């Protein structure tokens, strides 16, 4: 490695260290053990627990339907990642958990998720249940009043979470392109010993 390249690497490391100062603690790959299953409510009123999906990964995004810029991007990323996974996507259950249960009632949530993909399951719950679910996987959110009009926005983590096939461990990470999210999911499925032989283009994700 040349001196210049070495200096460059050092500079990059230094800058990234500096840029992380002053941020609240939110690593870009948080791993947490779930003390107990997360239980929330589906749009039809049925209670759904994270322990209801043995052998599947739960791909979870916390968002809200009034979030018109960022949330559709995130949800589309989930869906595109599943599309890229082909048949192996059946080992992954995508879930959208609303952080705005006040406005995102069952029917709204149901139509919202169906507009993106019929595989996507929307979940809601009491404010306390949702808060606890988010905290359990390392997701933060906070309601913020806008302009004193009673209108509000909800600041929330720009992350995707995966609950593993045992339902006992959660991982929350930054995400970017659908391809990268698919790769993360493939890696987790492979680690879980789930057979991926039916993925025709698996090499592209390695």
């Amino acid at each position, binding site marked *: 490695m040349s001196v210049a390249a070495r200096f460059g690497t050092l500079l990059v490391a230094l800058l990234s260290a500096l840029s992380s100062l002053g941020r609240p603690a939110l690593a870009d790959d948080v791993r947490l053990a779930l003390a107990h299953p997360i239980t929330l409510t589906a749009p039809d009123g049925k209670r759904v627990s994270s322990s209801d999906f043995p052998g599947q990964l739960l791909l979870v995004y916390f968002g809200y339907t009034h979030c018109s810029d960022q949330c559709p991007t995130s*949800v589309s990323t989930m869906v595109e990642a599943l599309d890229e996974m082909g048949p192996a996507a059946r080992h992954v259950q995508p879930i959208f958990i609303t952080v705005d249960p006040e406005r995102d009632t069952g*029917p709204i949530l149901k139509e919202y998720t169906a507009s993106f993909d019929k595989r996507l399951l929307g979940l809601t719950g009491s404010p306390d249940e949702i808060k606890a679910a988010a905290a359990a996987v390392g997701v933060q959110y906070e309601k913020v009043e806008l302009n004193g009009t009673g209108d509000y926005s909800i600041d929330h983590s720009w992350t995707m979470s995966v609950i593993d096939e045992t339902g006992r461990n959660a991982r929350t990470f*930054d995400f970017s392109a659908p391809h990268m999210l698919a790769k993360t999911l493939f890696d987790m499925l492979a680690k879980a010993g789930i057979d991926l032989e039916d993925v025709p283009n698996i090499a592209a994700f390695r």
Partner: protein
Amino acid sequence: MRALIAGFTAAFLALAAYAQEPGIAVEQAWARATPGAVKTGAAYLTLVNNGKQSDRLLGMSTPVADSASLHETKMEGGIMKMRPLGPVDLAPGKSLELKPGGNHIMLEGLKHPLKEGEHFPLTLAFEKAGTREVTVMVGKVGAMGPAGMTMDSGAMNHMNMTH
């Protein structure tokens, strides 16, 4: 040949439209289809100040929603925040690109869902250039760019700001 004529006609119309707008040009206005019964939506466009003097975007309106206003999405410590933006200045020769994950027009109180393939008018009010009406094309739910542009997932790479 017909395609060629159509191409020339389109180019001519585009030039004519451009020529009429010596000050502010509004380009690529598009919106996302709205999921289900959701009453909020997002629209995007690019503003270019081709004039010699600075101008300011004061506000906007559309018949399809109770309100349309400029918002910004910003990332702070891994948390995504959406906030209203006040009037925006446009210096001569500068452009302002609204795009997913950045500045956007938030449509609130939609009178009907925005469906892919539809279009609607949006009127922008500028301090000096006056009002400008544009046609907003509605793309897919969760689209990352105007229809016909292949930036669906590639655009995501620019959005992972924490790396």
